[in-house]
């Protein structure tokens, strides 16, 4: 169909608009204000504080998971916390990303010997970016977001390249 050719999955219009939206997604990553432990102070409070100012990069906090794009898991997740983390992740609308901040969220960190602690939050939610450090500096978190932005861009490009290929 002509219309399909104009606006369908493989059309130039679709690809162009998708590129635009991809930029928008990258430039406006709202994170959920969900601090678990020590990392919350560095990654959420200091990073959005006056010195590091996350707002600069378009990264902004929302208290409700429904309005967030990124979940920063900032701290140790134990068995009591795990269902809540999973639930909050499920409540976030697509597309969504997870940043595991700090040693605890990456692997369990200093507390991974304790049987009540989960060895990494990637056991329950898919993690996009790992930021080692205990706690990472606010700049490390900002660098993590830059890595995440690159990842989003790469993903979209991959997808669009496939679409272009199919369209031909």
């Amino acid at each position, binding site marked *: 169909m002509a219309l399909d050719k104009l606006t369908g999955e493989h059309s130039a219009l679709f690809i162009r608009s998708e590129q635009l939206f991809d930029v928008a997604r990258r430039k406006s990553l709202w994170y959920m204000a969900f601090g678990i432990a*020590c990392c919350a102070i560095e990654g959420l409070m200091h990073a959005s504080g006056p010195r590091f100012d996350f707002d600069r990069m378009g990264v902004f906090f929302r208290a409700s998971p429904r309005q967030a794009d990124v979940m920063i898991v900032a701290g140790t997740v134990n068995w009591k916390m795990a269902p809540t983390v999973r639930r909050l992740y499920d409540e976030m609308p697509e597309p969504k990303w997870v940043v595991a901040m700090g040693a605890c969220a990456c692997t369990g960190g200093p507390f991974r010997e304790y049987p009540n602690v989960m060895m990494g939050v990637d*056991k329950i939610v898919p993690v996009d970016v790992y930021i080692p450090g205990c706690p990472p500096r606010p700049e490390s978190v900002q660098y993590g977001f830059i890595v995440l932005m690159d990842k989003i861009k790469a993903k979209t490009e991959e997808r669009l390249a496939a679409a272009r290929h199919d369209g031909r």
Partner: protein
Amino acid sequence: MTAAKGVLQRAAVAASVETVESLGAVCRVSAADARKALVALRDSDISLGFLVDFFGIDTGEAVDIVYHLRSFARDEELFVKAAHDYGSVLSSVWDIFPAALMPERETAELFGLTLAGHPNPKRLLTTDGCPAYLLKSLEVRGADEVRNRAAQHVDPTALDRTVSSLAESVAQEPGSASGKTPLPVAEPGAAPLGLVRIPSGVDVENSEHLILNMGPQHPSTHGVLRLILELDGEEIVSGEAVIGYLHRGIEKLAESRRYSAVATLLDRADYVSGIHSELAFALATEKIAGIEVPRRASYLRCLLGELNRIASHITWYGPMGLDSGAMGQFLYTFRDREALLDILEDITGQRMMFNYVRPGGVLNDITTTAEAKIRTFLDDFAIHVEENAELLMGNEIFQARTQGVGVFDREQALGFGLTGACLRGSGVDWDVRRDRPYAAYAELEFDVPVAEQGDVYARCQVRLEEMRQSARMIRQCIDGLPEGEHTAKVAKVLRPPVGESYAAVESPRGELGVHLVADGTDLPYRMRYRPPALYALQAGEAFLPGLLIADAVVLMGSMDLILGEVDR
């Protein structure tokens, strides 16, 4: 000590009282007599009416339940120990000492005891089915297990099931099948200390009111505190604090770490004032091992401690503004905190997790750049603190929000085991730095601010004044820093002799104590961390009824909770 013996004899309690080196008077009673002994000790003329801490020690044969009592009037301390068999019944003493409310629940679950006579005997820190973690028989994960991360398999669908049962988990019974034991105090009017209700939790199933779950993800719970509120309109009928979302076994893990490495855990327990928890542990270790600390190290400990205290009070003051809606206050205070963290990073190497105070001294000497930074900071801070005081404390809206809200009178504050600024806000003049001087505090000059009203505003006033006093002490420390070594000669792998000690420091949240049991090896046998914020939390919980939601936020904010410390 002899007085305590006499009191117990008169009460017809079989007890042995002895003095343990580096700890003090220890009184041993049988589990059955513990209640009677505690009542006698509280009501007698020696009036040991303040429960400092309540915890257990697994001795290998039984669980020693330790009641750490203090008499403010006579400035005396007494440790009452009662041996309980594994899996036996722990009878609650919350009606004698309301401060035991939460520590009792915690001790019972972590040592596998059954709690009797408690108004809310649910599990506190862990979920159902968790083993008794603090028992010596339970092993932590070993090197093989933690290095092989992929082997730990979690089925996300299992979590989904947990999610659906999350709502019911509120009403879940403790591990024991018997369920709730009958309350010792049945009618609401008879709650001790003039409480509106007995803190028996929220009856979710039978309530006709709106049940509101606040947390663990909520902007103003400062971490992962969960409050279950029973609401009549906006007024709270009953409230329950659910904690344990950050329980990561710091006390247990300390038993498998060398003395020099325990500080890394303690940094993360009270994560905004790491120096103080490190210091408490170092002091306790030095007491047992008999290490003399050089004077310069003591001064450096004070200096770093006070810098850290300001940094910690800032993380309370800013979010306090945020809780009450003043966004600007949060960011203005964080400007100072950035400067402070720069200084701390310069001296210790990290911004928050210092790993700096070690048994015997401190890790590094102060740097010249740090000294210059401290002086600039002090000049700036003198201006900023007055601005902040005017911005928030002088604001009529904030005053209307906080004055007369969450009032604890003297008796209530003492009864719930409050310490630190919360206690001083209620008119009790007690400060560990002045009354039990440690490090170099005996040589420093400072005032202890006290406010009488006992409301949220009074606590704010006390903390604000403490920041000014800290700045004063920092100036003294930096001007009068004595020459010498920054650490004593200590063996690389420290093996303190068999012994027991208790060391307390005045952390920003109150009396932070470390009760250390050493068994002669290079690993601590038991490390009990007295979390001042836990006691503050249970007081806050007990005073929730009658407030509005907005008040609850402000009240919990004023207690300065750090959940890492509450849950450990």
